[in-house]
């Protein structure tokens, strides 16, 4: 039997901010029904977290929406899913709120509305715009068309863009990305911390959350057979392709970091070739990123129409496409380093990387940041005694 409080559960010390948007109201309505049913408790973290609550204020809804991985299990298992008159669709309701939280917590706030526009077309347009800009810059430097299609570079792209110019372009963007995302997640954290026990993060909680993020625990369905994609069958494909994407991205990022160290610490200048560490990391990472994003693209296109929020598909696909372009152009750049196409590919690659970074704080990338924050709060909260003592036990 569950431990019963000797006194009635205390009201919260912090005032409950009621839900306001239609999407938040829908999550609160649905969770009221879910909390009276609870059949889905085994699937993921959302439902055990739900049972610690009797009502769902705005911060609870934001927390739970970002805890949801959109695996689809609770939709296919739901006795109250449409066409039932209760019309419960947790993955969709949660996705809609998630989309809103990305925009609401974006920094600077005025740029939050970029989320609504950050679609596939915009992402690609940005890549080609930046690529074109770089090409024109090269042209106008006086090299003429010959520079763009010639072998005189001998595989060394610093001849085209000096190292310091590249640093001057990318370092501010990168630092801005880190700053903007941390501003957003800090505000998110301060909103959800009071409703998730208010207790600080302990090392075991941090370790568990890290594990859950790195393994994508909540795409395993709770039984290890995976989540749903196009129908009620379980599949591990999304988890695996996401792993390829995530770890591919991490390897590429590591390649760049190692290369930076080489440059500044040892004075070893790019390009690096096999079997150097940056090239090894970059090659494996690039291939992994291409495979992962190609897989995720496929899965996204085949996804059951009732999963998630259809309006966010352009954002999902835009991010997937950018990652794919970055990886593909990077690998192409390496493979074609001795050909006349080097300059063109370099401009394309730099354009893609720049577009990716510029949109990071205002696109799908945010899901990783907010979900990690929610998983961390969940790992903290679950270690506290349940505030609800159910006499029915």
């Amino acid at each position, binding site marked *: 039997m569950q431990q019963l409080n000797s006194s*009635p559960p205390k009201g919260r010390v912090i005032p409950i901010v009621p839900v306001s948007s239609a999407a938040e109201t829908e999550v609160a309505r649905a969770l009221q029904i879910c909390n*009276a049913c*609870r059949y889905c408790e*085994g699937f993921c973290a959302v439902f*055990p977290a739900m049972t610690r609550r009797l009502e769902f204020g705005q911060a609870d809804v934001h927390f739970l929406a970002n805890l949801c991985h959109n695996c689809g299990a609770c939709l296919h298992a739901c006795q109250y899913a449409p066409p*039932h*008159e209760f019309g419960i669709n947790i993955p969709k309701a949660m996705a809609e709120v998630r989309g809103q939280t990305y925009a609401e917590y974006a920094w600077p706030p005025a740029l939050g509305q970029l989320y609504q526009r950050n679609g596939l077309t915009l992402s690609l347009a940005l890549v080609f715009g930046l690529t074109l800009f770089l090409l024109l810059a090269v042209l106008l430097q006086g090299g003429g068309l010959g520079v763009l299609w010639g072998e005189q570079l001998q595989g060394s792209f610093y001849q085209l863009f000096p190292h310091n110019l590249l640093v001057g372009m990318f370092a501010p963007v990168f630092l801005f990305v880190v700053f903007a995302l941390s501003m957003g997640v800090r505000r998110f954290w301060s909103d959800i911390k009071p409703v998730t026990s208010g207790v600080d993060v302990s090392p075991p909680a941090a370790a568990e959350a890290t594990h859950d993020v790195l393994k994508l625990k909540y795409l395993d369905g*709770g039984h290890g057979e995976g989540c749903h994609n196009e129908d009620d069958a379980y599949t591990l494909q999304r988890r695996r392709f996401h792993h390829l994407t995530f770890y591919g991205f991490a390897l590429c990022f590591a390649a760049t970091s190692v290369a930076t160290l080489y440059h500044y610490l040892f004075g070893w200048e790019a390009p690096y070739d096999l079997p150097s560490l940056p090239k090894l990391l970059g090659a494996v990472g690039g291939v992994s990123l291409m495979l992962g994003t190609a897989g995720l693209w496929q899965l996204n296109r085949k996804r059951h129409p009732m999963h998630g929020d259809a309006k966010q598909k352009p954002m999902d696909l835009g991010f997937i496409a950018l990652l794919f372009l970055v990886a593909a152009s990077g690998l192409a750049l390496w493979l074609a380093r001795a050909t006349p196409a080097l300059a063109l590919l370099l401009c394309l690659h730099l354009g893609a990387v720049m577009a990716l970074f510029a949109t990071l704080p205002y696109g799908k990338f945010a899901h990783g940041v907010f979900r990690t924050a929610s998983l961390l709060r969940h790992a903290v909260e679950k270690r506290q005694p349940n505030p609800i003592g159910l*006499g029915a*036990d």
Partner: protein
Amino acid sequence: MGTDVLVIGGGNAALCAALMAAEAGASVMLLEAAPRDWRGGNSAHTRNLRCMHDAPQDVLVDAYPEEEFWQDLLKVTGGLTDEDLARLTIRASSTCRNWMRKHGVHFQPPLSGALHVARTNAFFMGGGKALVNAYYRSAEKLGVKIRYESPVDGLEIENGEFRAAWCKGERIEAKACVLAAGGFESNRDWLREAWGQNERGEWPSDNFLIRGTAYNQGVLLRHMLEQHQADGIGDPTQAHMVAIDARAPLYDGGICTRIDCVSLGVVVNREAKRFYDEGEDFWPKRYAIWGRLVAQQPGQVAYSIIDAKAIGRFMPPVFPGVTANSLPELADKLGLDRATFMQTLDRYNAGCRVGKFDHTALDDCHTEGVTPAKTHWARPIDTAPFYGYALRPGVTFTYLGLKVDDTSAVRFADQPSRNLFVAGEMMAGNVLGKGYTAGVGMSIGTAFGRIAGRNAALAAAGKPALAGAVKDEV
């Protein structure tokens, strides 16, 4: 159009039968009356399987031996059970789960709020609809032909042998057939006929809500009992019935419409009077009698009244309660006579003898000088805000069915059919004459669904039926 085995119905028992027959190599067709979205009948609303076990087994703690399970069944049915078939069901429940897992069912530890059945019941991960989905997927993989929106309205039976079924004007022949099309709880006219008119001139069943599927119309059950004079069992007024939120949908409200605060407060009827000991026993042991209690009240309605002290101590209800800052205000909002309500509540509050309140034990808080008494958890209802929940009887399923032995064969004039079998709610009354204990419906459906499927495949191959449960490798 022909098949070796025809399965009529689309819930747990039907799917178990179809899977067994397909595994035995028979060609199988399954006819589900509901559209795909509503497939699975009442099984889609279930959440667990009551399981015998002599030692801890994965999600099941301690032991739940055969004898204890049997005594539980004997107690809830008041002896209206067949011991051989009951023990068959119990033993089968101890070995069937590996077979269920093979067909994609996942089990999980008990849900929060349901820890009282951690020892006796294995919970389906995601509930019954996840189980139903898994079985349909597995059946499709095994080549079972599945047709939705295919209600069967008649059978051709010659000398006790099944020949063909009629579905939407189409004649479907099969060498053997399994009937697993559920009870008649969704059929309002039949319920009206069974429950009749009471001394107040009311038709009580008009106010019943159906917790499960709208598709259990009992067409085939009535056809078998009336046109074919199959041997029947059970009383048509017996049904699993609980008190649920009066605002629940007419059909398919399922688990979440339960109101679990009865034992924490008082319950009054439309006349604002109490009518039964709300604290007689732990709620999980009493919830199943409250449906019938409410059905006996005028208007088939009652009101569960609690105060702020109860909040957080029971499973949160699906709809918010009617809330008031005083008891007279609550009476007004619930449409109850204020004077009578206050008289009832004042008398109850004055009669409370509060000792050490403990909702996890049969505590010493009780009433004195109040009729009916409240024997446990009696505390004055005196702390605002006050909450009221209107209750109605909610029917889970009916017990009227076809008589069987341990081959699951349909019987005519006490002779078993060679090739017609029955499983699930259509025969659960053999084991459950009345009463209920959580998860036993799925135990019966699984045990007899599998027997029926195995025997239908044998009959299709011209072999005699086997008696007893399917033998699982342990």
